[in-house]
């Protein structure tokens, strides 16, 4: 089936809103591909989950219904992918870039899983690091979360265990209801990268703390069968285009995240930037939560993470 895709335009799906750095990265890749293949491969990009929820898109790339995408890890398809959502896998951008770069230990850990699933990972883009946005606060230390009686909306097993470890009450709310829930008080806090917090939740957020507990990678991927049937020069072109656009976007990502935090501060949100000592306190809870997280991703994977993160 993917063979027929050779003849027509490819589709590339993204998750972030149009005209964000994420979207620009995908668009840049598309235009570079057209350039480097001499127009033999043309890709249309669709931002903002227009091609469906990211899980569907991931599945569709696996099935070859959609040729490519810049998508979050979808652990439904293999629970080992959950490893990418380990709390404090990386605490700084430099660290994150290093472990996810081709040859980095996270890349090595995830690549075979992707190939097994049927997608070719071309590289990672970093959407940002999750911070803590809340209507109560300010929150500086993990103890503040329980002290202020903050109900945290979580979105995956890792952050759920993390906040429960510090004695917080966690709630499960669909993203579409999150804004209203923060407004009415069903939840008092959520953890997302500055981009998401600023774009969707700025009007209900009063405090934001850059806890950086989750390093959120998006993977630029192509359907494997389609990839394998490509001539060598086109494979090279696709990979080169990916390297170039990802390097370009990743170089800008940290500054962009800072920009969003500045925008939040400018509109009156109290933004707390943690000192390394303060973040170390959060890291302790993160590490404690790994014990239970091990049940989610399996001991084997957790051991690899332990070995690499603590060294």
């Amino acid at each position, binding site marked *: 089936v993917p063979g027929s895709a050779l003849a027509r335009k490819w589709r590339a799906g993204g998750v972030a809103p149009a005209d964000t750095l994420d979207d620009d990265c995908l668009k840049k890749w598309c235009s570079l591909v057209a350039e480097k293949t001499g127009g033999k491969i043309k890709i249309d990009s669709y931002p903002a989950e227009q091609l469906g929820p990211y899980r569907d898109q991931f599945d569709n790339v696996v099935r070859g219904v959609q040729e490519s995408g810049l998508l979050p890890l979808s*652990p439904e398809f293999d*629970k080992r992918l959950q490893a990418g959502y380990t709390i404090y896998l990386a605490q700084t951008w430099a660290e994150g870039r290093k472990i996810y770069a081709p040859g980095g230990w996270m890349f090595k850990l995830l690549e075979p899983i992707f190939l097994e699933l049927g997608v070719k990972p071309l590289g990672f883009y970093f959407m940002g690091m999750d911070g803590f946005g809340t209507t109560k606060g300010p929150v500086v230390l993990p103890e503040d979360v329980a002290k202020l009686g903050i109900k945290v909306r979580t979105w*995956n097993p890792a952050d759920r265990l993390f906040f429960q470890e510090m004695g917080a009450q966690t709630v*499960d709310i669909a993203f579409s209801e999150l804004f209203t829930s923060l407004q009415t008080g069903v939840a008092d806090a959520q953890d997302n990268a500055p981009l998401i917090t600023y774009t969707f939740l700025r009007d209900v957020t009063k405090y934001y703390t850059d806890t950086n507990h989750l390093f959120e990678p998006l993977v630029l991927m192509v359907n494997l069968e389609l990839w394998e049937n490509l001539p060598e020069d086109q494979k090279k072109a696709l990979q080169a285009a990916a390297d170039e656009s990802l390097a370009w976007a990743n170089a800008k990502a940290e500054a962009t995240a800072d920009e969003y935090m500045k925008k939040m501060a400018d509109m009156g949100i109290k933004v707390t930037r943690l000192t390394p000592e303060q973040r170390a306190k959060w890291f302790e809870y993160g590490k404690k939560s790994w014990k239970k997280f091990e049940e989610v991703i399996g001991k084997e994977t957790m051991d690899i993470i332990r070995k690499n993160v603590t060294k």
Partner: protein
Amino acid sequence: MKEFITKTIKYLHIAEDAGRIFTIVTMTALVFIQVVARIFFKWSSPAMEEAARFIMIWSIFIGAVVSTREDSHIKMGGIFKREPGVLWFELLSKLVCFGFLCVFVYWSYEFVAHSLRRNMSSIVLGVPLAVVHSTFLVTGVLMAIHTLYHLFDSIGQVARYYKGARS
């Protein structure tokens, strides 16, 4: 043979009705416990929510099976008002439905097979997703069976109409 079919259909009815009641009641109970636990005991479990969602998917499709069985799927009034037009259209409609449901069953089969092959499991509960994914296959088959039953009924009605018209 006829007795066997009647009996099977009868047991199907009982199972489907039990399914309707069980899913709706369990779903309500799960979410209600969740709400109470959160408000009064500050406790919340994503597992209950996930279970409720999966049960809802079953309830939707069991409901669709019963709508098929009772031939009460939402439709417009239609353009045929008199016999035999109405009868012929019903026949055609059932035929198209049956054909489409066969496609649906085929899709669902592929889906479940894919899910089993990949050994997909749910994020929170860790149950094999095939437990929910099979909803489509099981109910698809049931809908096809009921539609086939209606189709034969429709054929019978058309036949009776012309028999009646002749005599």
